[in-house]
């Protein structure tokens, strides 16, 4: 059911951990639903110079976190804003249908970390971040933010 890539990113997740002096931290998900993702970012010269995550969740949740951080690391803030769950899924060589929501969660976690960064640093929120949905409520018999 999982691609080799997903299994590899689950078993050897890249960028796990915390950043003590993070510029932005975003947490999405709900423990009741069984997934929580937290992304930590460090921003230098308009670029995401460091990014790490901690994830409570299934194989796909861990793998999408790992892959998303890999794709984002070193990107400019503008580039980071363009990351969609589709890119993550492609990079992982596919996800089973019932696991698509994990990739959405990863996208949301990054956006939450970016919102945190802009807010903490009193910067104006880019348009793209104004509509950030929360995945907190998307549990229990409802499609969980599956786009």
């Amino acid at each position, binding site marked *: 059911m999982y691609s080799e890539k997903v299994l590899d990113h*689950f*078993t050897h997740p890249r960028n*796990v951990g915390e950043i003590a002096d993070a510029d932005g931290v975003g947490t999405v998900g709900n423990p*009741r639903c069984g997934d929580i993702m937290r992304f930590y970012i460090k921003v230098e010269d308009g670029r995401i110079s460091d990014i790490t995550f901690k994830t*409570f969740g299934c*194989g*796909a949740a*861990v793998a999408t976190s790992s892959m998303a951080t890999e794709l984002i690391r070193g990107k400019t803030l503008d580039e980071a804003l363009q990351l969609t769950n589709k890119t993550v899924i492609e990079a992982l060589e596919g996800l089973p249908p019932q696991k698509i929501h994990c990739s959405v969660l990863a996208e949301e976690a990054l956006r939450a970390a970016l919102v945190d960064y802009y807010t903490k640093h009193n910067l104006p929120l880019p348009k793209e971040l104004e509509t950030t949905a929360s995945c907190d409520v998307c549990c229990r018999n*409802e499609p969980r933010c599956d786009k």
Partner: protein
Amino acid sequence: MFVYADNAATTPVSDAVFNAMLPWLHDRYGNPSAIYSVGREAKAAVEDARVKVASLIGARPEEIVFTAGGSESDNYALKGTAYAGRKKGRHIISTKIEHHAMLHTLEWLEKQGFEVTLLDVDSDGLVSPDDVKRAVSDNTILISVMAANNEIGTIEPIAEIGEIAAAHKIPFHTDAVQAYGHIPLNVREMNLSTLSLSAHKLRGPKGIGALYIKNGTHIDTFLHGGGQERGRRGGTENVAGIVGLGEAAYQCSLHMAEDAKRVTALRDRLIAGILPIPYSRLTGHPTRRLPGNASFCIEGIEGEAIVLTLDSLGVMASSGSACSSGSLDPSHVLMAIGLPHVVAHGSVRLSLGPQNTDAEVDYLISAVHKTAEDLRAKSPVWENNAPMWAKFE
């Protein structure tokens, strides 16, 4: 090290079973319904297996109908009894912790106009015979309670429930897929009308099972076809599978008691080795449980991730977490015993068989400890050596 610890899902075929099956897969390919010699020898093998399957539960050979596995047996028992009893009533009693082969069949029957009462269980997973008694009405045409649960291993009070069914003259079915060949069962003492079993849970092959149907039971045919199984189940007989099931049953008749003792000891050592993990708990009844079942919830980590991490350590295990079941909720069994979602998500089941060794149990204990540590280190809900919800408790 490689340790297969998912024997409740399926078991490795034993050498005895494999060797018994081989000739029937190749050289001895006759159709048991044929009257010529190679057909007759296949027929004899099928009948020999029937005797072995029957004798393990005190049934008569002609009360055994071979099916393609536990799910077909469950479908047959439920739909067959419901349709045969339709004129008497429409009410069926079962439980919230049945296997999906039961629950989905019951849902389908509800769509056809039957009424289904699913009984609650207590926090150990036990069904209360008193609840059964209270649920019985004039309209009740079937009571069905599983012999032992596949996820948490709890063994149900089948004999007591059978007495209630007998007193009310209501047909009584049990899904014994997890129990058959593992614990003693007697269809007469338990007042059973029908009993489902599946070969691959007792070191037999996949895709073969049986339904015990007490002589005189009113039951509609489920799988219509030729005259096989005395007209009760159509389809050219899976001779190799049937022989394999027969041999597996026979091996259980020889070794079940001693195996159960040994496996129970392994299981108890496994449980004792895992429970020291902080915020872990056993699920299911502490003592009334299947010999091989050791199932847990470990807080702060997620079941599918546990299974995949154990896999990377060479350990095959399973989980009733939402993710691993592909649904949004943790398993209905973990919900039925009243576990909060956050706890149920951390479910892991290790199920042992007679082929597991002491050294394997040692390895399982260390692998689960290592898995819990690794995943907790990556978990945003694990803070200061406790799950973040602990502070709210």
